[in-house]
């Protein structure tokens, strides 16, 4: 399990390296792009994911203590918190699509060339960017969607396994001494939590003062 997670570290490490280089090259565009993201929504998602990590850790503990109903409850809580996280992420994505901030042919530079037209940019006190700099915001959103999208995909996979585990745990599979599956899944879930711990400050909190 550790080896699998270490390959995942390499995978996300590559994404973070790309992010680091482009952020240094096109810093003003990354600042303007980051200001489009909602700190309350991102922060709430951080709290939700950290809480789900906590309930997962408790699930492992209850499995080892052979407390079936508490284990099932913790697994269900972890699952529900994951659903809410993805729901909020979905709302954020929806807003980006509506504002044409999803990279591609319909990408709109309006919020960056003419910040007065966008209440979010006005609230952040953004100044108008020159055309070429504004175009680089598309790179920020490409990375935003790639990184949070890969993270969300890991969560969806994890929730599939969680659903399977809830089903098996109800049948008493993990409370008879064989807890390894729950423990290893816990490692995976904590890893997904760690990725978000880095994504949140790096994507949402660029130059907020």
């Amino acid at each position, binding site marked *: 399990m550790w080896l699998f997670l*270490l390959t995942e570290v390499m995978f996300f490490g590559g994404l973070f390296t790309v992010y680091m280089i482009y952020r240094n090259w096109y810093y003003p565009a990354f600042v303007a792009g980051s200001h489009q993201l909602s700190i309350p929504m991102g922060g709430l998602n*951080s709290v939700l994911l*950290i809480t789900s990590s906590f309930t997962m850790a408790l699930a492992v*503990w209850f499995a080892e203590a052979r407390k079936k109903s508490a284990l099932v409850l913790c697994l269900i809580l972890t699952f529900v918190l994951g659903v809410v996280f993805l729901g909020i992420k979905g709302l954020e994505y929806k807003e980006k699509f509506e504002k044409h901030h999803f990279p591609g042919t319909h990408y709109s530079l309006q919020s960056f060339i003419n910040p007065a037209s966008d209440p979010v940019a006005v609230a952040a006190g953004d100044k108008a960017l020159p055309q070429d700099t504004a175009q680089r915001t598309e790179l920020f959103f490409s990375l935003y969607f790639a990184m949070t999208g890969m993270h969300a995909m890991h969560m969806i996979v994890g929730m599939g396994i969680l659903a399977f585990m809830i089903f098996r745990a109800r049948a008493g599979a993990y409370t008879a001494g064989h807890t390894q599956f729950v423990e290893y899944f816990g490692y995976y879930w904590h*890893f997904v939590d760690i990725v978000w711990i*880095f994504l949140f*400050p790096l994507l949402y909190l660029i130059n907020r003062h």
Partner: protein
Amino acid sequence: MSEHSEHVQSTSSPLVYVAVYLALLAGVGLTIAASHLNLGVFNVIVVLAIAFTQAGLVVLYSMHLKRGSLLNKLSVGACFFVLLILVGMVLLDCVSRAWGSW
């Protein structure tokens, strides 16, 4: 072995998880607060320092690496060392090749 596992709770006490949980929540609050201060280049350093501390707590306590085997510890250490080399090489390439001419 399974006869003994009833008595041997291999996982740490749940109190450790509560402590880690509260520390992580405090970390989120601190990160948001720190990002609103004007620290120049140190903003990203402070924010990353908090994130690495949070990640360290999760790996050591939630993922039990602290009381894990030496092999696991070495593997994780080696992974980050290799990652550091790879990222370092990429950065070296960028800095020496085209820095400032994009």
